[in-house]
């Protein structure tokens, strides 16, 4: 076996001693804040708004005349905006999220992006997922967190993606993260026969093989996880009674499952769900309004459900999208790939409000909004101030945190 030692695994102590800010962040997260659970009980839910969510029609600059000039047919009319102040406000489809905002449970981080933005869905998604814009990194930022955080090794559910295929953000070097689209599709067909199930269990544990391989132990472990995980999950969430009015949408179902996993004894620290597609090149309004409404309603139901089970303070939810969209609308009443856009942080641990400067519609990068907050600052915030881990190694750089958490 010849495997790279994870930097923070071997040097964790030194990094901690050398960087007092991290020590502070860690202490902050480890000590339960008034009314909040300690870091060990906290959970992060990431919502990927796939396809590039148009930030300008999501958090609307209704006080900016340029917005209305550049978007003659798709701008949200001033009177419809759910105002935050006299400059910005929510898209009217997001009434349920405005309610979370009014309760002080929602933070809006404006103008989030990264330097030298890539306009390809594929590459920009990968940049957000790996948090390494400068190279092709194959582990994800959450995967590196799971590897580094020294979570219970035998727990199969430290991280869970509610998806068909594991998103790159959760690709880890040493943590097996299950991707579960729905509970009843997650399992071995062969387990349906009891004799086949018990034979499988014995055979994958075969440890007297007439050959050696650097991957043998890994293969046997993953084969074992595939069976155990799919057997344990239904038991862990059995008997849960959802207490939120989830919309009958894929995101509603995903967040409902997330709430069940959070309430179980699975010990899950990171969950990942997906929503979209926000790639609104044509006739944007109908599609985006529907998706934003679904997002807001599902988020509201999720926190109602969490609250009813006493979990709302344990769960921080973060949205992200690979990019925002062009400021000016195109000829098809849509918008093309752009750059900076806002993201949301929600949950009991959030200090509600608006963070980051609103991007200037006059000072653009070839018609795109310039970013004011690097997305890795938001990740650093989540890692340090919520999950209680030093972020510098995970993010391969030092980024200032935001006071929203």
């Amino acid at each position, binding site marked *: *076996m*010849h*495997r*790279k030692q994870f930097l923070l695994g071997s040097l964790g102590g030194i990094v901690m001693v050398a960087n007092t800010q991290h020590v502070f962040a860690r202490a902050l997260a480890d000590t339960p804040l008034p009314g909040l659970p300690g870091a060990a009980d906290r959970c992060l839910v990431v919502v990927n708004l796939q396809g590039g969510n148009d930030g300008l029609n999501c958090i609307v600059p209704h006080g900016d005349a340029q917005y209305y000039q550049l978007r003659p047919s798709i701008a949200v009319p001033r009177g419809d905006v759910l105002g935050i102040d006299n400059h910005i406000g929510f898209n009217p489809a997001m009434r349920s999220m405005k309610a979370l905002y009014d309760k002080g449970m929602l933070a809006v981080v404006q103008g989030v992006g990264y330097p030298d933005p890539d306009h*390809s*869905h*594929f*590459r920009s998604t*990968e940049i957000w997922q790996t948090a390494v814009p400068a*190279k*092709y990194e*194959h*582990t994800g930022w959450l995967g590196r967190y799971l590897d580094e955080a020294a979570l219970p090794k035998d727990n199969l559910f430290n991280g869970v993606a509610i998806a*068909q*295929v*594991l998103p*790159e953000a959760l690709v880890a*070097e040493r943590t*097996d993260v*299950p*991707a*579960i689209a729905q509970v009843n599709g*997650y*399992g*071995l*067909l*062969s387990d349906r*026969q*009891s*004799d*086949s199930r*018990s*034979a*499988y269990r*014995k*055979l*994958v544990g*075969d*440890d*007297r*093989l*007439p*050959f*050696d*391989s*650097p*991957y*043998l132990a*890994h*293969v*046997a472990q*993953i*084969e074992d*996880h*595939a069976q155990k*995980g*799919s057997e344990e999950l239904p038991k862990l969430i059995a008997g849960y009674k959802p207490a939120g009015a989830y919309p009958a949408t894929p995101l509603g179902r995903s967040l409902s499952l997330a709430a069940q996993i959070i309430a179980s004894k699975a010990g899950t620290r990171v969950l990942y769900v997906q929503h979209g597609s926000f790639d609104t090149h*044509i006739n944007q309004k109908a599609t985006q309004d529907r998706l934003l409404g679904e997002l807001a309603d599902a988020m509201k139901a999720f926190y109602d459900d969490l609250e009813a089970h006493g979990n709302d303070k344990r769960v921080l939810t973060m949205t992200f999208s690979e990019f925002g969209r062009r400021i000016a609308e195109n*000829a*098809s009443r849509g918008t093309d790939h752009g750059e900076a856009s806002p993201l949301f942080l929600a949950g009991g641990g959030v200090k509600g409000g608006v963070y980051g400067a609103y991007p200037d519609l006059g000072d653009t990068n070839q018609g795109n909004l310039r970013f004011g907050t690097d997305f890795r600052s938001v990740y650093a915030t989540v890692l340090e101030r919520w999950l209680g881990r030093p972020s510098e190694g995970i993010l391969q750089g030092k980024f200032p945190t935001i006071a929203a958490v």
Partner: protein
Amino acid sequence: MAIAHTDVAGMDRPAGRLDIGSALREYTGPWNVRLAAHLLRRAGFGGTPADIERAASHSMNGAVDALVHFPSTDALPQPPQLFDPRAMLRDMLFAGQISLKPDDTQKREIGKQIRQGERRSLIDLQRWWLNRMIQTPAPLQEKLTLYFHGHFTTAAIQKGVTPQMLLNQNRLFRTNALGNLRELTWQVSIDPGMMLYLDNARSDAAHPNENYARELMELFTLGVDQYAEKDVRESARAWTGWIVARRTGKSQFVASRHDNGSKTFLGETGNWSGRDVVDIIYKQPASAAFWATSLLNFFLYNDPEPELVSAVASLLRKNDYNLAPVMSTLLRSTIFYSPRAYRALVKSPVEFVTGTYKALGLTQLDERAQRALVQMGQILFYPPNVAGWPGGANWLTSQTMIARQNFLAGLVNSPEMEQGGWMQDVPMKAAQASSDLIATILQDDASATARAQLASYLNGSGTSALGMLSAENYQERVRGAAYLTMAMPAYQLA
């Protein structure tokens, strides 16, 4: 020469010590079914039981000769008819669905139809290629085609890359399968799919695009830290002038778009063209080391030792980057048949699926296998990014493992299983049946305990007395046992 040793996550080197003195010397040890199957897994897509028997009945050299001298593949099915947007537009015009000057609604409809047509074509193209891997009499040619697809990645349905371009690129890899790496690099550089995927088609003297120039060195030929940022910029200037003609989809050099100034690239100054850039790159010792590492990772084992990389790199340089003699040496080498290389790689999903069809004697794969490949994380013509598929332990998560095992379970329980023929030959005595399955599918890479457990499954342990292997339940038990044999850890390893 400094070789940057990059230790990639999830790529694990075998235990034990490399004997560099004998590593590339011709293997002279015993030749048997296990090693013949090993050769077929690495230099192809595994084998049917008969293929393995045949390779084992030759000498090692005879078996390798049969692989490196490609037989004619003329009898294989032709590629599918691919979507032709022009024909579609003609038909739509003729049917009055669109006008010569389409409005926005019609344009949207056209766009939708094109996307759907290309998607369908891509699925057809994937299936054609996967079937070709199973059916070809020249498996090494196809294996190298797959290797080059992962190395010089281009993905479909983005940036204007059409299925037809990917088919053309696929043919380019196949034609050059045991050819010259320098020449292939040049051909790939002016391949329309690659030019669109990495933006060289959008580059000109006024605005040189650096995307291809960078990846050419970082991911295709030299590796990181072997060049400076200035080399990327100078190379980008040298590549200007190449475009993909919109009408024909072919690449073309337009002199007026080319930067004719002097460029200094990797220490050499002149009015370089793209072709010169390729030639200068291949003068660098680092390019031989880079290719040696890549080839060893794919064909031998992961994270090869610097001494071994260095030895294969010398071989590449000595042969002026001609792959045929280098692959021939590697496939006959002592290290290739050593216990360190044996089952030392994780099967990629494509190897896993095609190898299963071959092991079961099936010759025709369907959309079910393609859907399973998506779940396993490998979609042909659609690599995750320009760096290709990461490989090694990265293939395996509990979700991809469930996809692998459920694919096997689906296949052994499908009606096609009877076409393989061999199922009828499995003896009706549990101990013998268990031994036969483990010998045929795993070349005996299972313990005595596992053998006994499989026999006990065949005998119906854990079920009622009626579960015992009998004429009535024979088929069902054998299918179940074939699945369990393939579910064992050795089967995940190449």
